[in-house]
């Protein structure tokens, strides 16, 4: 992943992230399904901030969040005819965004595993050598500045979680989504979701302490 673009402005006031920004009336859904450009544009404008923030929280990188957001809407437009209106448009877009992000993580993981290191670079693995050119998860300075130490450490701890655990905690604890909507986004039943959230919180707590986080 490439380095970040420090163009984000953190705002102290938490914006509403619940469903409802996109009015889900049947006529609009029908227009979306038929590919009406105006309806599609309306959807993009209404949902873009949420999707971007979700991608940013999942990827921790503004540039990646930018890419993921574009990819999410492109996938959505391609799949418009398959949208049945059984869930909110925002939920549907969330699901696409999470899947796009998971695919990206999988791709990056494979790329890292299959990466060849030349003999000239092998010395980089020694303790005193220069770090390899492996993309990191940069954060925009503005956002870092606005966060407390605990907050930064917690977000770092979240980076070390498995993608599924990170997704559930992002949706539940950061985005404050209700259980049923998260279950729809991640296509899992409520019981599984609750136990996954429980396990993820416990893992986060353990990692947080390992990183030096202090007990409150």
């Amino acid at each position, binding site marked *: 992943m490439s380095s970040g673009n420090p163009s984000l402005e953190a705002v102290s006031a938490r914006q509403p*992230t619940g469903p409802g920004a996109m009015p889900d009336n049947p006529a609009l859904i029908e227009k979306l399904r038929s590919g009406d450009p105006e309806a*599609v544009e309306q959807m*993009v*404008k209404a949902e873009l901030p949420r999707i971007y*923030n979700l991608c940013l929280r999942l990827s921790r990188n503004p540039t990646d969040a930018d890419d993921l957001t574009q990819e999410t809407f492109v996938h959505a*437009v391609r*799949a418009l005819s398959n949208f049945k209106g059984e869930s909110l448009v925002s939920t549907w877009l969330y699901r696409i965004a999470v899947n796009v992000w998971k695919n990206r993580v999988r791709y990056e993981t494979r790329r890292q595993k299959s990466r060849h290191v030349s003999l000239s670079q092998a010395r980089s693995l020694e303790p005193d050598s220069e770090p390899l050119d492996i993309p990191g998860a940069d954060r925009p300075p503005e956002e870092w500045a606005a966060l407390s130490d605990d907050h930064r450490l917690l977000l770092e701890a979240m980076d070390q979680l498995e993608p599924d655990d990170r997704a559930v905690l992002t949706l539940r604890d*950061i985005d404050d989504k209700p259980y049923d909507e998260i279950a729809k986004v991640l296509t899992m039943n409520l019981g599984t979701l609750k*136990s996954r959230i429980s396990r993820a919180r416990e893992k986060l707590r353990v990692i947080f302490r390992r990183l030096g986080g202090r*007990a409150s």
Partner: protein
Amino acid sequence: MSKTHVTDLLSEYIEGSLSYGNAEKVRGHLAFCNPCRQALTETEHHIDVLKSTPFARLPAGLETKVLARVHQELKAPGVPLRESSSFWPSWLTPMRGLALAATCGIAIVVVRNVPHDFAERAEAPARKAPTTTELDQKVKADVGSANAPKEEAAADNQPSGEKQPEGFGGSTGGAAVADRDGAAAKDALTDAVSSNKVAPPIAPVAPAPEAVKAPMEREAAKPVEMAVARRAMVAEEKLDASALQKSADKSGRLIPETAAPWAAAQGKSSVIAEKKSVAAPVTPAVPATPEVPQMNRQVMPLVKAKAEIAAAAPAPISPMEGSRSSISRPQEFVISDQAAWEALWKRHNSNIQPLPVLPQIDFATHQVLAIFAGERPSGGFRIQLLEVSKTPWNGNTVRVVRFRVVGPAAGTMAAQVISYPYLLTVQPRFDGQTFFQKRP
């Protein structure tokens, strides 16, 4: 939840989504467990901190970029709004080859397993219920085999009532009681055949194999009673009608009389005892002759009854008591009209194709009481109708139906299948309230 800590319940405890019992358990544990209390505090703090993550504003130009790409996608030929033209659903697309291979494999296995005489079998007539003649022959064979040596051997195998299922042996149990029951059944049977005064409320017909099989199994140690019982099952509807009429005339306690023929067929001593009190004065319609062996004299009325039944109503009916209802929840119904009866019959037999012929009930004079016991863990369960009585209640007369669900006796073997026992009984019409009481 681990044995020593409650960390895996803390998350739901914080959310308030734990059940009252579990929440109390966690609360109690937290009172003395410092590590869990610490974990709770930390998790609550982490949630609070994460919830305060600021909402980032959109980077400049992102909306334009996204809209440009979206419009580009909309203009692309064939993308994005083509309807799914593929036969395969999108989720199956990556597995097309696998699905095709699996389908072919299944087809090959099926084709190979089709018997070669399949066509002949298809042309052959469907399997029929045993005819009256066949039943007669089988009965004679049973009676013949019931002679002394086997009968004694069977009696030796079951010397006392201790081994009998509770529901069938009754509280007094024992072979002697069962013999008396058998005699009562014969009396009832003879009485029904000879009187023949009351039109049966249900079109009678030869019972389905299940109805015959059940008493056969239960009475395996008493072939004589078994043979008589089988005939009692054949004529049960007629007996039901006559017993119903008599009971209505004499005591108004309908069910013991109505259930008696079936009970007799199954050796239910408790119900038979009540039956005997009513049926005792009735004399057999067919006089005994010295030329006819004793057992044949007992069988003769049954043969006549079967002939009458076969001539009167050939339409088959489902057994009125069994363990394979499609109604899987414990429920009771009073059916008072044809539409409800048809609906119940359809629902009750929805696992049988084709649907058995609907028994004809005269709802002007009768009602059907239907009792379904719900799911039971094994075979051997049945519904025992104890009593149908009328009693004053709140200034009105109400009908009370008492029944119990009898399970297989301890130590006996039962089929390890889920069963759904049911009982359908026809009763004189009663337009007041009906209460069902399930007894332990």
